[in-house]
């Protein structure tokens, strides 16, 4: 189903917000990412058509910004900040030990497809390190002052929540 069909009200609201059509590209890309966690080639083409620009241009925007993805990953992307201020407060050790607990390397997804662990740039949570954001579809949530134990509890909770829905 196309974005226009699936999210017609939201698409209309996005276009109504901007005087210049092209400005709608970023909110549309978030919408496209909502369900699968990444922007499909079909969605890029549809957005390009709506905005009357080339699909390549849409793809270049997806490639430029770190919160857009063009490949499938885990249901949740656990994006740990390992920049200098967080690293001074132990973010590297946190990330390493988290990966050990989850049985993955940075960039990899847990075998059940639930969590992809990523190392990302500063998230403006420097005083609350170790911290990460959880990206799911078009949502991001912050998790601050974290320990590996608390993170593993969170992963268990996400796992349980996923089973309930099914």
């Amino acid at each position, binding site marked *: 189903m196309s974005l226009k069909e699936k999210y017609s009200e939201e698409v209309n609201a996005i276009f109504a917000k901007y005087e210049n059509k092209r400005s709608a590209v*970023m909110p549309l890309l978030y919408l496209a990412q909502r369900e699968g966690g990444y922007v499909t080639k079909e969605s890029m083409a549809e957005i390009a058509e709506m905005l009357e620009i080339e699909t390549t241009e849409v793809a270049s925007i997806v490639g*430029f910004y770190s919160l857009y993805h063009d490949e499938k990953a885990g249901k949740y992307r656990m994006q740990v900040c390992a920049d200098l201020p967080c690293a001074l407060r132990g973010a590297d050790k946190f990330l390493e030990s988290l990966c050990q607990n989850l049985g993955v390397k940075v960039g990899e997804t847990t075998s059940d497809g639930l969590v992809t662990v990523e190392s990302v*740039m500063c998230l*403006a949570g420097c005083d609350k390190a170790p911290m990460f954001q959880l990206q799911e579809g078009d949502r991001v949530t912050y998790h601050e002052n974290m320990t590996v134990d608390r993170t593993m509890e969170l992963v268990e909770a996400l796992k349980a929540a996923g089973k309930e829905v099914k």
Partner: protein
Amino acid sequence: MEHFLLRHLDIADINDINIYKQNGGFESLKKAVTIMQPQQVTDEVKASGLRGRGGAGFPTGVKWSFLPNNIWPHYVVCNADESEPGTFKDREIMERNPFQFLEGVALACYAVGANEGYIYLRGEFLHVQEYLDKCIGEMEAAGALGEKLFGTSYNLKLKTHLGAGAYICGEETALLESIEGKRGQPRVRPPFPAVVGLYGKPTVINNVETLTNLPFIVEKGAAWYRTLGTEKSPGVKVISLSGNVNKPGNYELQLGTTFRELIYTHGGGIPDGRKVKGIMPAGASSSIIRVDDSTFDTVMDTPMDYENVQNIGSLLGSASVIIIDDSHDMDWVINKTVHFFKHESCGKCTPCRDGNYWMLNIVERIHEGHGSQKDLTLLKSVANQVNGKCLCALGDFSTMAVSSALERFPEDFDKKVKA
């Protein structure tokens, strides 16, 4: 001391529109719109000496006066892209004191005759966007935004726009490109945004904290504002303190407060009995100030204002003070900063794009213990070839920590490299 920006520390529920109103909320906007001419607002802000809090420290009122009066419409864009490693002040202001911030955006719009204001938030601040949208709705319902404000003919609409993770979008022309639905790459200047900005129209771009100062300046006047801070750097500043300190966080202090007061009185000193080794006062973009037994008192007694921090070889910038203790070596520190800038270079200018690639290569080699003395010379040379040779400041920023670390902490590198 009373807080003027982090006002939630004095009045916990200042984020409730009714509490905000009971505490004088929207009175400044009403005063401006009903009894002041836009030029009078600009003049007051100019007289207050308020300087941009996003990092550059440019006088705010002067920036507004660059907008031509024969090209319309005018736009105000608030830069809420806060992405500098070590900076987390705008987030706290927007999350905890949103109405004062939005009143500030509205005042800037009125001053430059804009009927539309954009707030550009970094993509990670989705929760802030949703919160501000709700606050904007409440202000519209309360008559503090929307059509015919306070019974005048002035209309004002505020919109939020969400980025998607790109440090470069904090650079003002890249930010405009991003709102226009393009990759966030800086524009060639001139023309400056004041003349050719958003959608090709005259545009003022101000930081969150800068705008949050405005309601108090309009209410109490420029003379009052100048009683805070120093002569050349008037007012208060929210300082983000991070790294190796006992109590990291945001502290609203008068400009000119010393590093000693920030680090030891407010920040509670350094954990585990360690010593300060380096200070980065403007986040990852700063030159690293060396602190050792011989320089300790001079550095600690330096007032944090735009001039004095420069005098000890760095910049105040957005006042994101990162403390590095003596358990860390500087080759590790610059490995972190270069890694950041290599990731965030937008790719438009060759010196920045390729320079950061090569700097990272060399820095990693040194950090892993495979470097030689030649690598140190090469690293210095690459940094010099990036600095000053790009369209925007990101290239320069990427070299600050590298060049200063090599120059001021040579022993950290000498022990790492082979002769």
